């Protein structure tokens, strides 16, 4: 497994002030696969996700120990530039949060600040590619100049995905991307996640075990700040080794 692992977490402890949120997490995340993080509320799965692109740096009282390596580079090394890291590790949030700008500008913003497009035609192509990949192109190609906030919730979330992949990151982190969406929009996004897998490594936090079972190849179960069990999704759902995993999957805790 470790040969294809793009992200390797070792002994990750996270503290919010005095309170320990994650305890000695060790997890390998394989390249070009979908890994889902599941567990009851407050188990630390979102905290772990946000460690991968150092979004936790924004929380003053948050302290991360241990090491997380992406392609053998420790992302918590002092010389690492967070901006460069976040260009490599994009993030889609729980609530769709497009910028209050046009659809085009939403997608073009990342490439613009990272200098990825040399010319206007390059940028147009990149925007189209991203929207195509996010399955949104057909719906918005005639109204790229309209505000992204005017789209429906599911479309907004796909716009956020398009915006994230426009920077061509290696890893896309998704923090419960479907929790604010209806079942149809959710199905579209799930399909999309499956397609994106060929280009990107995806780590998704989800509350829905069905969703984890549908979209992911690997699953990690968190409970009370600990990583209880991780492995192939199929084996986690059919033959969990730990009793807590089994209880959670059966709906007895959570």
């Amino acid at each position, binding site marked *: 497994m470790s040969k294809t692992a793009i992200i390797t977490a070792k002994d990750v402890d996270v503290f919010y002030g005095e309170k320990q949120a994650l305890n000695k997490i060790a997890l390998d995340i394989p390249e070009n696969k979908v890994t889902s993080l599941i567990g009851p509320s407050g188990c630390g799965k979102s905290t772990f996700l946000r460690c991968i*692109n150092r*979004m936790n740096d*924004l929380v*003053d009282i948050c302290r991360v120990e241990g090491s997380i390596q992406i392609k053998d580079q420790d992302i918590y090394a002092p010389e690492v530039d967070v*901006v*460069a*890291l*976040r*260009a490599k590790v*994009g*993030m889609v*949030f729980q*609530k769709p*949060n*497009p*910028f*209050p700008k046009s659809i085009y500008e939403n997608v073009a*913003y*990342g490439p613009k*600040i*990272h200098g990825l497009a040399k010319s206007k035609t390059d940028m147009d192509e990149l925007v189209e590619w991203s929207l195509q990949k996010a399955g949104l192109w057909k719906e918005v190609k005639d109204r790229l100049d309209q*505000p992204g*906030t005017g789209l429906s919730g599911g479309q907004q979330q796909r716009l*956020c995905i398009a*915006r*994230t992949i426009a*920077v061509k990151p290696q890893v896309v982190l998704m923090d419960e991307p479907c929790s604010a969406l209806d079942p149809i929009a959710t199905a579209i996004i799930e399909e999309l996640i499956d397609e994106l897998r060929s280009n990107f490594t995806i780590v998704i936090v989800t509350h829905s075990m069905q969703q984890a079972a549908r979209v992911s190849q690997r699953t990690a179960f968190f409970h009370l700040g600990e990583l209880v069990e991780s492995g192939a999704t199929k084996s986690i759902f059919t033959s969990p080794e730990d009793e807590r995993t089994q209880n959670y999957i059966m709906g007895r805790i959570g």
Partner: protein
Amino acid sequence: MTDLITPSAQLKRRNASESRFQWYGRGAIFVSLAFLVVMVGSIIYKGSGAFTTTDVALVIDLGPEAVDPAAPTDARVEKIVKDALKARFPEATKRAERRMLYGLISNDAGFELERFIAANPAAIGTKAKVWFRASDDFDILMKGSMDREAPESERRLSDLEISWIDSLVADNDVKRGFNWSFFTNGDSREPELAGILSALTGSALTLLVCFCFSFPVAIMAAIYLEEFAPKNRLSDIIEVNINNLAAVPSIVFGLLGLSVLLNTFGMPRSSPLVGGLVLSLMTLPTIIIAARASLRAVPPSIREAALGMGASPVQATFHHVAPLALPGILTGTIVGMAQALGETAPLLMIGMVAFIVDVPHSILEPATALPVQIFLWADAPERAFLEKTSAAIIVLLLFLITMNLLAIVLRRRFEKRF
């Protein structure tokens, strides 16, 4: 289940208290509106007179013995005007009567005649009809604000003066018109000549200095404190002190300006530069507090989105957060500016209370400001300054309304949904 048509006693009480509360609210709004209407109404009623003025026509003899065609600028214009008045009313022979007669028209008449001669060189050597500004008491009589029936000793004009005025009116030599000079003149000791322009310019220059200094400083301080500064004891102390600063009486800032800006740095006294700097000390906390509040109101998801894209904190702030906070920041700025516009006390301390006739052309020249002008005129003994005071208040209110409209327009422009 209880009856849906006839409410229970408890529900009746609830409904009654609800409608009672709504009536209290309406009453409060009515009372405050009534105060506003009374205030603005009385100001407009008193001040409207200042926007019209009275002019008197005199036939001026510009013959060779009065104006030398070779050197028209050497003419003794004031004597010519007095001669014309004497010619018009030959019955005034005593010194006291003569003085009353000369008092019918403004002190400025000589300059007016000079301007007339310069503009109409062809009139030299002829008899010309020239309009002169009437004196303030004449003007008040024409506006009907003087009681003709009152005993002579209680009137500002004697029976003789009133009879002259009536004869001028009968001969169609008196006209009323819009008082343009109120907007083109500076202050004057003569109410009929006093204008608002120097105070208006002084206020505009002062506000300009205030804006140029306080806006960038306040915005930078607010953005840094809200977006970048670590939250620790020091930033708490700074925050508390900014809030305290907003509550400091403005005259204290005036004293500070006097001792530091004028005495230590030797900046020019009475200048809009010093006035603007002192006022910006006052507006700084207002803008900082408003800007921080509107920055805080920007949803954190926008910040996360930008940072998650790999935007640096400065990019996230200036590309996404600040534009969304801009309407609130602008509103706070205009509110601060409006406060500064109406502020008098600190300006008194730095000498902007001076009697300024000339319109200031730069921020270094002595100037006065609208509220100070109102204060000065309200203090003046002449009856005619009463309406000037109200008129100046009207101008100040219009200035304020313009600023608020600007704020609304800017807010509409920049407002975005998120």
